[in-house]
């Protein structure tokens, strides 16, 4: 009986204390008709040894070699210390730190995390995580609607250069509450928003801007922020946290800074792992702290005056406020935050800046190299961070399959979202990509293009 410590003697003695004849009689309040389905399609139990073999075989089937895909998830170097510490039982198998005195480890760590995230984004306050970047955007939108008392509308303008899946997720989540997302479209010049795009602002409660944007391009965030504020809209910034070590942080955008900042925390020490678990982060101005969703840790003192940490402002949360809570979130992504906190502590501001620069540098090399092939050219010219759109002579989807077959993960097919972009490939090179990797990519791509041309 895996994981069950009971001996027959235990069972007998315990049933006697209970006064029950057998285990089955413990379920005597369940109507007979509801019990006893045979579960015949379930497989037999496996020992750890057997399941280890199974999982090793399955995991070995999946190709992970040089990865030039980004589009919301990024393969970075993760220092060994990060997960050796994160998987320590005391972090790994603890519950939410509701009993503060028995959870000072996690709580202090979360307080440090909040301090790091506000440092990185130049914002006043941070929560202790949401599910992921996309759902964090949905929460940010709901929060903006609550927070912007000046605006009466439930209209939110979303940059057309936002990750399209983020847009979809936000719609799935905020749609039921009558919130309308509209696209900041207008002249999409060179893959980034311009001033004309902002004409549609009037009466919007908030504007969502991504930096760097879905195409890897840097947006003119100062202009966008000031225009949005001028029109009475709050600015929700969706940012890549690694980029923030290099780029101007949202708290410093324009005259007054962004109002709410959210994004995907995965690049901060969290493995790709097929898309999750990652974590969403959310920062805001101090004034909005009571509108924030998710847990927040505060520093306080114990009855001897010793400093300690505890969850605070819990009156925002579902377990206290129930139907009036700022969100229904309960379980969040705590362990990922543990990893991210350790990651940021190891990298520091300077280390993270170097990571960001190395990514940028490698992406420039990559695009330069690939664009020496005939028919391959960058779609946009303006500044990028660590992603760029390449136009190919064939559908990106085909190229991706062909390269995957030789072990190169070529990029993200923009045709998924826009048939006009079927030949467009979004590529990314993080600090892990070497010159050899780029050469291998170029060679494989060249072979595929030549073959197809023939």
């Amino acid at each position, binding site marked *: 009986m895996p994981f069950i410590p009971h001996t027959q003697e235990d069972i007998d003695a315990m049933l006697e204390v209970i006064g029950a004849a057998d285990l089955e009689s413990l379920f005597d309040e369940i109507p007979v008709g509801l019990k006893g389905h045979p*579960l015949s399609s*379930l497989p037999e139990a496996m020992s750890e040894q057997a399941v280890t073999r199974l999982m090793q075989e399955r995991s070995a089937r999946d190709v992970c070699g040089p990865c030039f895909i980004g589009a*919301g998830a990024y393969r970075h170097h993760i220092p060994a210390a990060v997960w050796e510490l994160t998987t320590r039982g005391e972090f790994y198998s603890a519950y939410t730190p509701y009993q503060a005195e028995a959870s000072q480890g*996690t709580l202090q760590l979360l307080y440090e995390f909040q301090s790091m995230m506000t440092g990185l984004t130049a914002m006043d306050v941070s929560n202790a995580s949401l599910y992921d970047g996309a759902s964090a955007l949905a929460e940010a939108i709901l929060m903006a609607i609550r927070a912007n008392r000046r605006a009466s509308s439930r209209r939110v303008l979303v940059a057309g250069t936002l990750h399209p899946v983020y847009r979809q997720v936000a719609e799935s989540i905020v749609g039921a509450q009558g919130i309308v997302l509209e696209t900041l479209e207008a002249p999409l010049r060179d893959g980034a928003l311009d001033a004309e795009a902002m004409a549609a602002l009037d009466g919007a409660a908030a504007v969502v801007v991504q930096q760097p944007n879905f195409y890897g391009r840097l947006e003119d965030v100062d202009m966008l922020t000031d225009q949005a504020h001028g029109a009475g809209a709050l600015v929700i910034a969706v940012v890549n946290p690694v980029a923030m070590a290099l780029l101007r942080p949202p708290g410093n955008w324009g005259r007054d800074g962004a109002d709410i900042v959210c994004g995907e925390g995965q690049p901060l020490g969290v493995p790709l792992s097929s898309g999750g678990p990652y974590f969403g982060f959310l920062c805001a101005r101090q004034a909005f702290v009571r509108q924030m969703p998710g847990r927040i840790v505060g520093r306080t003192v114990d009855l001897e005056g*010793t400093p300690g940490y505890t969850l605070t402002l819990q009156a925002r949360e579902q377990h206290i406020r129930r139907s009036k809570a700022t969100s229904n979130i309960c379980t969040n992504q705590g362990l990922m935050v543990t990893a991210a906190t350790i990651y940021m502590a190891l990298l520091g501001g300077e280390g993270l800046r170097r*990571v960001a620069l190395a990514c940028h540098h490698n992406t420039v090399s990559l695009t330069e190299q690939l664009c020496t092939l005939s028919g391959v050219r960058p779609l946009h010219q303006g500044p990028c961070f660590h992603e760029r759109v390449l136009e190919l002579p064939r559908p990106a989807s085909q190229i991706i399959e062909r390269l995957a077959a030789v072990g190169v993960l070529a990029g993200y097919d923009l045709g998924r979202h826009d048939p006009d972009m079927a030949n467009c490939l979004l590529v990314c090179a993080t600090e892990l990509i070497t010159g050899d990797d780029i050469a291998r990519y170029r060679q494989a791509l060249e072979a595929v293009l030549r073959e197809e041309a023939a």
Partner: protein
Amino acid sequence: MRNDPLIFEQGRPGRRAAAQAPGDFPVGAGIPDRFLRAGPARLPEVSELQVVRHYTRLSQKNFSIDTQFYPLGSCTMKYNPRGCNRLAMLPGFLDRHPWAPDSVSQGVMSCLHDLQEMLAEVTGMAGVSLTPMAGAQGEFAGVAMIRAYHLARGDEARNEILVPDAAHGTNPATAVMCGYKVREIPTDRDGDVDLEALKQALGPQTAGIMLTNPSTLGVFERRITEMAELVHKAGGLLYYDGANLNAILGKARPGDMGFDVIHMNLHKTFSTPHGGGGPGSGAIGVSKRLLPHMPVPVVAREGEAYRWLTERDLPQTIGRLSAFMGNTGVVLRAYVYARMLGREGMGRVADFATLNANYLMCRLRAEGFQVWFPQRRASHEFIISLKQEAKELGATAMDFAKRLLDYGYHAPTAYFPLLVPECLLIEPTETETREELDGFVEAMVCIRDEARRDPDYLKQAPYTLPVRRLDEVRAAKELDLKWLPGTPALKEQE
């Protein structure tokens, strides 16, 4: 107990964990100055040893399953097998990009597909989607599907979700996020939903009801079939909050009870770790009529190959709830666990979770503690009320909870469900030994003795933890939510 200064306070300007950062590249012409940040981000400046030492020490300040008995009602704090962790972290799984083509991702997809099938079978549902990232998001998906179902049928008047008063806070909060009004249904004396009240609440405005069974009161809703009929007759659907699935796993199936949709907390029933707050996975299962509305993506098997079903395949989907496909790494842990349990093991979970709960309940009752529903069988959890102790000795549930920490036991869930005064909701789980349960009873008895001798003593507990009882009021009033350079260092402790 030692004080651990914040990691920021341990830094010095210019100190670095130099093995961890790449070389320094010039910014170059690619990024004009105006896009760049003026100074470095305010992050700690520490060495690698300082980081390792700091977080190792911090971790030791936590209670956890791996170090303590954790009878936290509604949370199913059972053993998280280490094998699940290791196998979910095999390089092939860990390094796979979520957008990697299906053709080179069949390994992980086969695991997800297998688990979808296993969960459908064990819950009696027609289909499963693994994407919701926690219980609450599973609830969101479930209620959103109920909404999509009514709307797809043109049934637009249904604007109310019923929720028993004992329900977990996420239930009403979720209903509101899905645009519904919430109506509370009271509990009767025996801990069942008040059927008369339910009948009165049902009507053409009823979109559905959110239940957990056994309920958060730790008892099985005996008239569930009748309730299901009533709700269905009124045109509503039934939502099963699977947080308590551990109680009936392999014994009874929500689908057979008449539920239309269920979320499972894989981080409870399927033993993935809580990680100090998360991540979890709130996989959902649906009956046939909700199949078209499942959140995407879902894995389908076609011949020998697996492929992702998306909006294209499920045009009536409620959509996506995360950028990728949810918490795959958590799901993989649950999959390994499910394979280790196998067919036989599922029912054993419920058997022994229930045995432990009933044993502990009977032992506490025998020691004179007030079991809240003494005439009922406990499910995998049960409630005791310390009303008496609070009145006579001034020792509240909170005081017992805090003092238990000194005895090396994590406190049970206190003051939930809200309708039981001074309650402790106790869930021992199936992986604890009888000796551990006996130790807990002994501690409860000792604490009551302490309260009898000196009621004030408990008020100041805990005594042996890294901090004494914390001032939560001050935390909320004088908000201190982040470190700032120049903040006075923590008071020195010895």
